[in-house]
């Protein structure tokens, strides 16, 4: 039977298991939107295409499925760009569909035409321009295959309007057949010889550290990694993207490493003799000065993308493969080695004790106050009120780092944050996508007053669909992280970082149809959080008016060695205890 391109597209999406999409209609995609009410897929109309991309991203991050978003040609497509780049750099599987002018007008500077595949080429894993309706089904199939296999990523499919109108045969059975892309064959299984070498290195190391990245979360390797830490007595540290991969309260887990990492994590990496990197990419925010990052360690690097191995740091034992599949092979080898070498435990126990001493001597700490709300205190209270079980999305800046430091995550896919691109405006739409993907969970977006204002219009989207997200604005009246850098590195010249004029967030959110709350004193924090938790049919935004000049510490100055941290003033802590 002949279907139109639009019908083929929607049917193909159904066959891919897509049931939620986020988008924004326009002239070039009207044929698709015309058929949308007649398929089983629920569409969420965001208030901006960037919101649609971030929502699809949040949905994908919490479910592990492919997120899907739609936009029209020209400005619709360009508005997706930030969202696609955000997902791509964090290896999130997304398939984006954009409309375009009819094929015969492409390249004519027609109304609402841009070269979408050209613009998105550097920020996608792959992209397609479908020029003939005969290629449509095959292209959709390839797009999903590429997005979800290997290192996950973003695939964009550009659809000229005539392609969505024309009629073509569509055979479901043919569509369901397995796909082969002859030039694309991701390596999933690790090399057995390298795995043996890695196991030996793990057994003979005295001071190993597990350096956990986002790849552990996306491949589902969490349990295996924890098991290995326990079997072989290895302390664990995580990148921002790797947080939630292992339980935050695990006795062998020492928190995030890098620029705002814990003292213990950064020292453990600096002092280790074997660094076992899993699904991590040695980002500059993690490594600081490269020559002083794990300077005396042998390095094992497990990653699905061979281009990441040796990119920034020389690697002794590279293992290309899916983290979970590699760990399935590696763990039994390590167990064998450990069984052979009983002294191992003795060595390692003193090493773990050392790392624990660092953690006890220099814990995450801020000076509490009963007059002004400390931002860290808000995060701790959110953690308490949500019993550590909420899905947390963040925007970007100080609040993001405080979440990373003070919210102890319990299960994988619990933290949704823009790690690689650092996209302000990510948090609210990502929370919408996360709540759509996991309606059973409390979804809390922790934002800043600057970040919130970048995509706050999406609160209306949440109102429209009764999506009960909670948003905590850590409001310090500043672009807080900018202010912090200006304070430390620019002699307190707070150029253009103070947000002197702010909307009244409570009234603003009420005007959009949500619930607005505010807390100005520490004793109000818990009360408003509980109030927010009781609302289950619409979004709630809480404006936490916090200490204006609180810094995120520890901090490694950019380009510095990660062992050289600016630490909180523990002196005052000691005094307080003495009193």
């Amino acid at each position: 039977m002949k279907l139109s391109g639009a019908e083929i597209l929607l049917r193909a999406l159904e066959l891919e298991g897509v049931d939620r999409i986020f988008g924004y209609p326009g002239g070039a995609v009207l044929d698709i939107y015309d058929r949308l009410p007649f398929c089983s897929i629920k569409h969420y109309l965001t208030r901006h295409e960037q919101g649609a991309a971030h929502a699809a991203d949040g949905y994908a991050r919490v479910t592990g499925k492919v997120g899907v978003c739609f936009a029209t040609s020209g400005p619709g497509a360009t508005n997706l760009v930030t969202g696609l780049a955000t997902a791509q750099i964090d290896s999130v599987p997304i398939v984006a569909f954009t409309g375009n002018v009819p094929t015969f007008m492409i390249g004519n500077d027609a109304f609402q035409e841009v070269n979408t595949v050209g613009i998105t080429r550097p920020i996608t894993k792959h992209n397609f321009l479908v020029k003939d309706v005969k290629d449509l089904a095959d292209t959709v199939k390839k797009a999903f295959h590429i997005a979800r296999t290997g290192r996950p990523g973003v695939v964009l499919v550009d659809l000229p309007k005539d392609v969505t109108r024309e009629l073509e045969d569509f055979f479901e059975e043919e569509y369901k057949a397995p796909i082969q892309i002859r030039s694309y064959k991701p390596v999933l299984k690790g090399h057995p010889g390298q795995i043996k070498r890695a196991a030996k290195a793990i057994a003979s190391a005295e001071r190993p550290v597990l350096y956990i990245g986002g790849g552990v979360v996306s491949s589902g390797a969490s349990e295996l990694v924890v098991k290995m830490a326990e079997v072989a007595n290895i302390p664990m540290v995580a990148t921002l993207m790797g947080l939630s991969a292992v339980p935050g309260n695990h006795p062998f887990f020492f928190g995030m490493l890098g620029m705002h990492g814990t003292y213990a994590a950064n020292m453990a990496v600096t002092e280790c003799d074997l660094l076992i990197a899993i699904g991590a990419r040695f980002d500059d925010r993690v490594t600081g000065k490269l020559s002083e990052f794990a300077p005396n360690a042998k390095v094992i690097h497990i990653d699905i993308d061979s281009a990441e191995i040796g990119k920034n740091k020389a690697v002794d034992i590279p293992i290309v493969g899916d983290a979970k599949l590699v760990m399935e092979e590696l763990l039994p080898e390590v167990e064998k080695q450990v069984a052979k070498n009983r002294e191992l435990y003795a060595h390692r126990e003193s090493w773990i004790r050392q790392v624990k001493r660092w953690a006890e001597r220099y814990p995450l700490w801020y000076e509490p106050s009963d007059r002004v709300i400390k931002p860290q205190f808000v995060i701790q209270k959110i953690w308490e009120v949500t019993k550590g079980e909420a899905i947390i999305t963040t925007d970007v800046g100080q609040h993001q780092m405080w979440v990373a430091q003070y919210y102890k995550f319990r299960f994988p896919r619990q933290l949704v944050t823009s790690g690689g691109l650092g996209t302000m405006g990510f948090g609210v739409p990502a929370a919408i996508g996360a709540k759509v993907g996991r309606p059973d969970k409390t979804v809390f977006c922790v934002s800043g007053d600057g970040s919130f204002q970048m995509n706050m219009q999406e609160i209306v989207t949440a109102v429209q669909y009764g999506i009960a997200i909670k948003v905590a604005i850590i409001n310090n009246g500043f672009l807080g992280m900018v202010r912090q850098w200006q304070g430390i590195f620019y002699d307190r010249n707070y150029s253009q970082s103070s947000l002197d004029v702010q909307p009244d967030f409570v009234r603003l959110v009420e005007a959009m149809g949500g619930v607005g709350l505010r807390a100005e004193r520490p004793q109000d924090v818990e009360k408003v959080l509980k109030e927010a938790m009781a609302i289950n049919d619409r979004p709630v935004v809480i404006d936490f008016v916090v200490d204006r000049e609180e810094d995120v510490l520890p901090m490694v100055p950019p380009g510095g060695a990660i062992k050289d941290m600016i630490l909180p003033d523990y002196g005052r802590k000691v005094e307080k205890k003495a009193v």
Partner: protein
Amino acid sequence: MEKSRYRKHVISVLVENQPGALARIIELFSSRGYNIESLNVGHTEDPTISRITMVAKGDEHTIEQIVKQLRRIIDVFKVRDLTDKKKLDRELLIVRVNVESAEKKEEVKRLVDIFGAQIVDVSHDTYTVELTGDEEQIDAFLELIKPLGIREMARTGRVAMVRALQGDTFGGERV
């Protein structure tokens, strides 16, 4: 990363012959600030597959990165750094030189003979010469005819293939 020596690398890439593939490869270079010295594309015995030969300058680490990044492109089948392989390595030059006098005409004919080149076009005061050879031969030829006055020239950049006896060709193991 330790810096190793900086030299020219010949990289051969087999890629799906479809729009966007070449753009993706070129973009990889431009977006990372890698410099391409020459780039040559044409299809292979299989018309759906193109062979790209590129020459890029860089240290070993940079080139290794280039090769890995190229492999990551979905349309790319195979990438090989041929620099240290025994290979056939050719470039085509077309050059138009001034030959206003009989002496100059004789000189060009002599050089064409020595280099095994061909005169492919003639006007009353120019000869156009075609020469195929490796990079050194072409550079040497150009050096010698430069004093006569070059009007116009075009060179293709290198194409390269591993020698069959190396047992190291792309053939057979391709798809």
